[in-house]
């Protein structure tokens, strides 16, 4: 079985820096690590490999050259091969262009199963996984919290807002996984050391045979105008008995 795991190299730390001038995310600061949600995708692939014979795991990322640190992490954890999609033309991609570029690379690799994290901690859109599936024209199940069966077909547990449902899906397919699915392992130091010295395969625009108009900023119809934190307000009002009755009447409960 050929498994492709999509990895987004993201800045470390839960507090993201948003540039006060442009309102966009500052990705320059600090080392890039595996997007925490993608760690669950990597772990799930490794778990499948531990249970089944002849599984090959390829970790794939689209990022600037310094994104290689995240792929080294994936190698240390147990991916067999990693590919970094990096090209100036890929820069500034929205979720559509990112999905298209990743899908092209995955198609070129060949696959039976694609696993993504449910979303990224920096972009937070959860669109890229399903987007890839659409470009590949395969089935996908998002927010998978457990793989119940994996053979000719797959049975997974999908997390919905207030319940779960079991979904049966044929291969090849793509799933995005939630935090409930496993407990990601730590790499062993020896593997980390090996991964640090490993050559990271890189593919550019030419390797994918894509038109520059289809990727990066040029291939992105979305424009980020402003990024801001939503504000949440909760108010508690203390009322006496009389006020309480009035309140209930106002809400037509009485």
């Amino acid at each position, binding site marked *: 079985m050929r498994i492709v795991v999509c990895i987004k190299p993201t800045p*470390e730390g839960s507090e993201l820096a948003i540039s006060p001038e442009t309102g966009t995310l500052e990705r320059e600061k600090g080392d890039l690590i595996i997007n925490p949600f993608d760690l669950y995708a990597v772990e799930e692939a490794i778990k499948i490999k531990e249970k089944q014979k002849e599984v090959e795991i390829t970790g794939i990322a689209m990022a600037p050259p310094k994104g290689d640190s995240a792929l080294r992490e994936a190698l240390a954890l147990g991916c067999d091969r990693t590919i970094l999609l990096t090209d100036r033309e890929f820069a500034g991609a929205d979720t559509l262009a990112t999905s298209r570029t990743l899908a092209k690379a995955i198609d070129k690799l060949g696959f039976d199963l694609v696993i993504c994290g449910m979303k990224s901690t920096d972009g937070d859109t959860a669109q890229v996984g399903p987007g890839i599936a659409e470009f590949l024209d395969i089935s996908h199940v998002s927010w998978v919290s457990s793989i119940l069966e994996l053979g000719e077909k797959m049975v997974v547990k999908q997390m919905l807002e207030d319940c779960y449902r079991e979904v049966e899906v044929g291969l090849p397919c793509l799933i995005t996984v939630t935090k409930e699915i496993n*407990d990601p392992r*730590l790499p*062993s*130091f*020896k593997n980390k*050391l090996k991964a640090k010295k490993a050559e990271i395969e890189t593919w550019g625009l030419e390797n994918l045979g894509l038109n520059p108009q289809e990727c990066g900023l040029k291939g992105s119809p979305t424009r980020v105008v402003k990024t801001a934190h939503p504000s949440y307000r909760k108010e508690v009002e203390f009322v006496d008995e009389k006020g309480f009755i009035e309140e209930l009447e106002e809400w037509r409960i009485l």
Partner: protein
Amino acid sequence: MKLKSTGKKWEVDEMSYNKLNENLIDRIGEIVGEEGVIRDRDKMDDFSHDEYPLLDFKSFPDIVVQPRSTEEVSQIVKLAWENSIPITPRGSATGLCGGCVPIYGGIALSLERMDNILEIDEDNLLVTVEAGVKLMDLFKTVEDRELFFPPHPGDESAMVGGAIATNAGGSRAVKYGVMRNFVRGIEVVLPNGDVEWLGTKNVKDTSGYSLVNLFIGSEGTLGVITKAILKITPQPGATMTLVAIYENLEDAIGTVPEIIKKGLSPISIEFIEKEVIPPTEALLGKKWPTSEGEVHLMLIVDARDEDELMQIGEELVDICTANNATDVLVADTKEKQEEILDIRSNIYLALKKDVVEILDITVPPSRIADFVKRVRDLSEKYKIELLTYGHAGDGNVHVHMMKGGEESAYSPLRRELHEMGIEMGGVVSGEHGIGLAKKEFLKMMGEGKIELMRRIKRALDEKNIMNPGKIFDL
């Protein structure tokens, strides 16, 4: 005498002290302001104990006084001196041996309102603080300037003054040493109310006796520490946490002296038996990195940069592997490292309800394997569970005496453990101090030393008003 005691005895001579009268209390109020005085017994519970797990040492002060400045401390102490009122200084009371419990009543002098960071001297890498600064605030302040204060006694809510008065240690002592190594100077208020600066900003200082070192670890019996000049360092460029997995205790603990011998000095070497992990995971809702093996060593390593870090890591992993570690895992993200440390730091909290007492016996690092083995033998002999985990790298593995056995066995077992520690070249307390809990064991280390301490105490505090009844009996 208000002291509740379960069979332990202290020589209490109440007659030698005077009681606080209304007149004195009014004068105290004039000095520190009414908001700096607590007279209502209902509001004093926090000031009647520390974190010692048993209730043996609970005792209320007559008044809690919270001064705002050295000048106010000096006036209060002078008043106590002139009127022979016992005075017990305290920080956050995170101690584990009853050190700040006012067993003779009198004044509990809480330094909490003296919480200013006075100077950060980036040229000399020194920070000057008031005694009531909490460690967590000190850590934060220096970290914001990309500096680092290495000592890390377990509870970050502890105050600087208390950490100095008890010469606190903690898990980073393997590489950086204990509080003593980071104190350049202190301002103290002596028992008669005089104020003196001991020590300076200088690296070298052979100008007379090292009085600053006399006060470090004196547990408030010689005076009140009001300010301190502390050493800080640049922040390490890179850190990582290794978790080495072993099938048995001997291999794990046997690794420790090998690491020390090579001079590799990780920040900390913590030793954790698997059984203490699940209750802590349940408490925090977090997951320890592995359930493999029986015993784990947690090593925190720092270095100037990533390359140096990997180099040290490689050497450490080789040593672990040579000592039969089945695998060594690595966490390098800040988040993951904090999660591991958080679990390690909260083991005590998870076990606390079943702990009778946490001992602080410390042996030379080379004897640590032997020590842990003999603790196990004693556990079997007395049929009392003794959990051991903690600072393996500095020989300070805390023995936790657990509930469930015969209560009559606690006392002889406690005694035998301390005798064994001393016989191995160890000490009865490595980082918690003596306070009340360890007085009887300190005696085992020789009457001569105690007599010397008595002479120093009498010379500085002939009225015995400063934290009386602690460390040794006069």
